[in-house]
């Protein structure tokens, strides 16, 4: 039904997209705004690419809105998640009540452009929760300034910076079937031996009390893996994602030396200079070029190449202003905290200091820093040493003979075969796994309660793609031994699950 509906619209030219070569459109809009004729532009909070005309923007948003309203008739609680048309997929995500994010991706003939809707939705979810972590909810910014200028001036650079991470060359690369054995929005953990875990926990204990009586939260990473967290799973995922994007030793080194990064940087300046809708992105002219006046200044937390390691081991940035410490918002605890990052070799510590503990601004911050160096440096050295000793390298979690993804939805944790190993799989196998995952996604969204299932698919190349879902844990696996029977395959899964 929807498909037909959409095709009519497309035929009417209302959904005229893909005309200017952009294969992706991403928009954020507020259903509560612009409901009167002539004020439609009000509802648009963000649109990518920024250089399309308002009429195009309005047609995409209008169509999405129509679809939402329509599907709400049948399912008021959860309106549409995806609309598949002949040439496009519309992926919906209601980030906050009546704040919608819609991604429109072009279906082209290229085989690479095969994705899983759930994975695309996860991109929307990720960018939104990162946004909330730094700026607070979209609604709260709208409430602060009902004209919408504030939220637009924040969303534009934020999402653009985020999308730049996805760009390869001039093209945005969305998570395709090749990433089917990965799960965005989860944390990857380092497995610790007990003695190392105790050392880590001991360090966490010291960090806890670095700001006096108010407890500091902390997240510790080693390379790009999580070692410890005192935050709720949701907050951990956000902070982990951000750290891996910008803070870890890998992120820092790729930021300064990698060639691909330079390309990313240049594409950013292009997109901002191409901006042709100044009314909509009113503040884009005043995007900070380093230091501006703090009052009207929009902070770009995801700005590239802005973090570096200071002499004292703490990571510094001028994103928040000269000598200003970033603050973030913890969702679960509903509190704003200062973010301090400390790095020793591949060990990255993110310390979250409650704002109430920081009364005298940077003076108190430097006191906390002092406390960390004073009380924790010995432990940091020890932990780093222990973890390095036990570090199995990139392929530590490779299980030979298997290509797998294990997701624990309760803890929002996943573990997968190293991407280098996954890359050895045949395209057919990956497509089969992708298909399988889609099936499980559909099955999961159909019933909200936890469900047990086990599905095996034989791919065209005789590989097995297996999914096993038990009590909040999902295991996906690809086995490429063509001679294996279904029985062999299930046995392998069994022996794997028992590990």
């Amino acid at each position, binding site marked *: 039904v929807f498909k037909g509906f959409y095709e009519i619209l497309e035929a009417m030219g209302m959904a005229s997209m893909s005309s200017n070569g952009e294969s992706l459109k991403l928009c954020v809009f507020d259903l509560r705004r612009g409901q009167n004729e002539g004020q439609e532009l009000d509802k648009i909070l963000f649109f990518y690419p920024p250089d399309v005309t308002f009429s195009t923007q309005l047609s995409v948003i209008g169509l999405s809105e129509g679809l939402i309203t329509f599907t709400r008739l049948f399912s008021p609680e959860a309106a549409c998640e995806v609309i598949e048309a002949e040439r496009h997929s519309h992926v919906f995500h209601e980030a906050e009540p009546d704040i919608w994010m819609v991604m429109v991706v072009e279906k082209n003939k290229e085989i690479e452009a095969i994705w899983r809707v759930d994975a695309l939705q996860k991109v929307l979810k990720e960018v939104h929760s990162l946004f909330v972590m730094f700026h607070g909810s979209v609604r709260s910014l709208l409430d602060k300034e009902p004209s919408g200028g504030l939220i637009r001036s924040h969303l534009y650079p934020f999402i653009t910076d985020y999308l730049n991470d996805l760009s390869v060359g001039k093209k945005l690369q969305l998570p395709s079937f090749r990433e089917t054995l990965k799960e965005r929005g989860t944390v990857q953990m380092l497995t610790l031996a*007990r003695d190392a875990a105790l050392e880590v*926990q*001991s360090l966490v*204990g010291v960090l806890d*009390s670095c700001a006096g009586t108010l407890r500091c939260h902390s997240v510790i990473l080693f390379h790009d893996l999580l070692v410890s*967290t005192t935050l709720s799973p949701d907050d951990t995922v956000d902070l982990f994602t951000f750290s891996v994007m910008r803070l870890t030793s890998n992120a820092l080194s790729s930021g300064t030396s990698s060639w691909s990064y330079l390309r990313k940087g240049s594409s950013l300046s292009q997109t901002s200079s191409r901006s042709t809708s100044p009314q909509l992105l009113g503040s884009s002219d005043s995007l900070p070029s380093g230091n501006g006046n703090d009052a009207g200044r929009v902070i770009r937390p995801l700005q590239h190449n802005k973090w570096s390691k200071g002499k004292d081991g703490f990571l510094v940035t001028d994103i928040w202003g000269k000598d200003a410490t970033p603050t973030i918002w913890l969702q679960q605890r509903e509190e704003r905290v200062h973010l301090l990052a400390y790095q020793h070799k591949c060990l990255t510590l993110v310390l979250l200091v409650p704002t109430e503990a920081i009364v005298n601004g940077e003076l108190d911050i430097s006191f906390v820093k002092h406390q960390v160096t004073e009380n924790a440096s010995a432990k940091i050295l020890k932990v780093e040493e222990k973890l390095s000793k036990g570090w199995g390298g990139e392929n530590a979690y490779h299980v030979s003979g298997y290509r797998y993804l294990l997701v624990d939805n309760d803890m929002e944790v996943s573990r997968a075969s190293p991407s280098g190993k996954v890359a050895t799989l045949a395209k057919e196998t990956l497509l089969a796994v992708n298909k399988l995952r889609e099936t499980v996604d559909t099955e999961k969204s159909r019933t909200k309660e936890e469900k047990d299932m086990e599905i095996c698919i034989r791919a065209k190349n005789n590989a097995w793609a297996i999914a096993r879902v038990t009590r909040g844990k999902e295991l996906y696996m690809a086995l490429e031994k063509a001679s294996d029977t279904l029985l062999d395959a299930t046995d392998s899964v069994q022996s794997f699950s028992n590990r």
Partner: protein
Amino acid sequence: MSSRPSSSQTSVGSGALSHAYIQHPSLRCNVPESRGLFYDDANRLLICVTSSQVFSWETATFNPDVSPSVDSIPEGPILSIRCSLGKKVIAVQRSDCEIQFFHRETKQTLTHKCKAGSESILGFFWSDSPLCDLAVVKTSGMDLFACDSAMNLRLVETKKVNVNWYIYTHESRLVLLASGLQCKTITGFQLSTAGVVRLPKFEMTLATTESNSKPIISPGDVHLITVYGRIYCLQVDMEAMLLHTYRFYRDAVVQQGSLPIYSSKLSVSVVDNLLLVHQIDAKVVIIYDLFVDSRAPVSAPLPLLWRGYQGSDTSSQQENEGTESSTSSENIVMYEDAWTFLVPDLILDQTNKAISASSSDRSSLLEFLQRRKLEANKAKQLCLGIARTLILERRPATQVTQAIDVLVTAYSYSVKAGIYKELKNEKTTATTPTNDGASPDNERGRASGSSIDEEEEVEMNLPSGSADEQQESQLSSPAISPDELYKFVFASVEEAMVEESDYLVAIITEFLRSISAEKLKVDLNIYVMTVRLLAHSKRFAELSLFTTNKIIEPSKEVALQLLESGGQNLRVRKLGLDMLRQLSLHHEYISSLVQDGYYLEALRYAQKRKVTSVRSSLFLEAAFASNDMQHLAAILRVLSELIPGFKETSEYYTFHGLLNETSSSVAV
């Protein structure tokens, strides 16, 4: 003659605070016509002589009422007197060239003389070295003799040294021979069971002043002490007002620093490996612990007190005596001129309590207490009390961590050294210590007040010489096992700290880290407690980390606690279930699954693992309650296969009947 009168009043008395006490009552030796009092440190005998008789008291097992053994010897002057190590022979130095030996059983007599005129005898002592039994120190050197049971002396070896004076203690088996004009050149020999070792010659430090450009060291200025099995020499340098310490190694003598002197007369004692420096003029005693590098005293200087006297409570030790004379005066005068301090075995004992009041650094205090062997019990209780107080007072975690490290390391060490023994029926471990008496403020209050309970607890252990292994092993150690720490510290503060569980968890983590580093185990209830605390403060993310990283060691008890705490949080409950499954506790796992409504999964698991111990009605009732007749039918079928003879049970009939009634369409 008495080393101390028993019941007179003095200025030193009630209410005064002290670290060191003299045991009361002390040994009295009222021997008429006494000519002198000697102490034989090798045999721990107090010897009193008259013109023809020798009275000797055993002091090793201290009992003030013990009666002396009496031996008769021919009349004559007695310069010194010592029994052989088997106590068979009494040796008496009659003059500077004659020593007489009397066999106590055979009454045999032997006289040993040196070359008159060219040399004179300074003294002698018995030795248990394999080489010789007797050493005679003369101005020309030291003669070593072997002595057989028939009292034949055979010269084994002569060490040629010019000697002005010498000192020897049996405890250290070390003899120091002083030579030179200022008597500051020291030659040392150790006559140990391993043989005779010559120590490198060394010079003592002496400051010079204008008034005294060539001060001379007298034997009274030098003390040999043994603490923690190490031998030190203490030397008074009156000009500099310093007490120099030297430590003896097998092949070196190393000066270790100096302690200040506040008195023109000074003596030292060692109690329980602590150095007590008596500043005689000032009538105070200062306690030092040479184990730590710091030369700071352990406590503030306080007077020496009589123990058991006028309400000064606490523990105690041992006799002292004055060599010459010793008054029978009615007044107790501390540090009488006549007092002699005998090095190894002293008068005093410190009270742990007063020290705990005056030491501010808790972890070094704990370290200190852990090294105490005397009254190990009391030290142990104090340690537990201090640890509890540290936590209850919410001291910074680093401080508590340090304290815990000290206790755990001490325990680990004492286990390795074989000192620590699991004390079963010991009363102190059987009862939970109360919290009062733990806080230093209380201590201070109580130290001056009297406490009869405390007196009863007093143990009469003697400080053991380091050489005396057997005696040492009889002492209970103040070491605290992890289980005891859990029971008397963590478990006992849990209730009071429940609102500060973050803090307590941090401390427990440190404790676990500490015992893990020492490869020790602890009562698994501590893990149950940790789960409880983390769940209480809703730190579920960390609870999960603790569990997956096995900081919380898996056990049935922990799993059940996870299930219980998981009442508030499904994720936590799942952790518990996973743990049950990993521990192969099939029965509990299946029951919990059914309880959560996952009866199909439970049954599937039961079928796979062939578990039949779970009541079949559990599954059936769960399925029936969920009103899913298909499930009920499936369960009936699986149970019929799983449990032999199930079809004949009344249960089967009941549910089969129910099934048929409700829905005829489902076939079983």
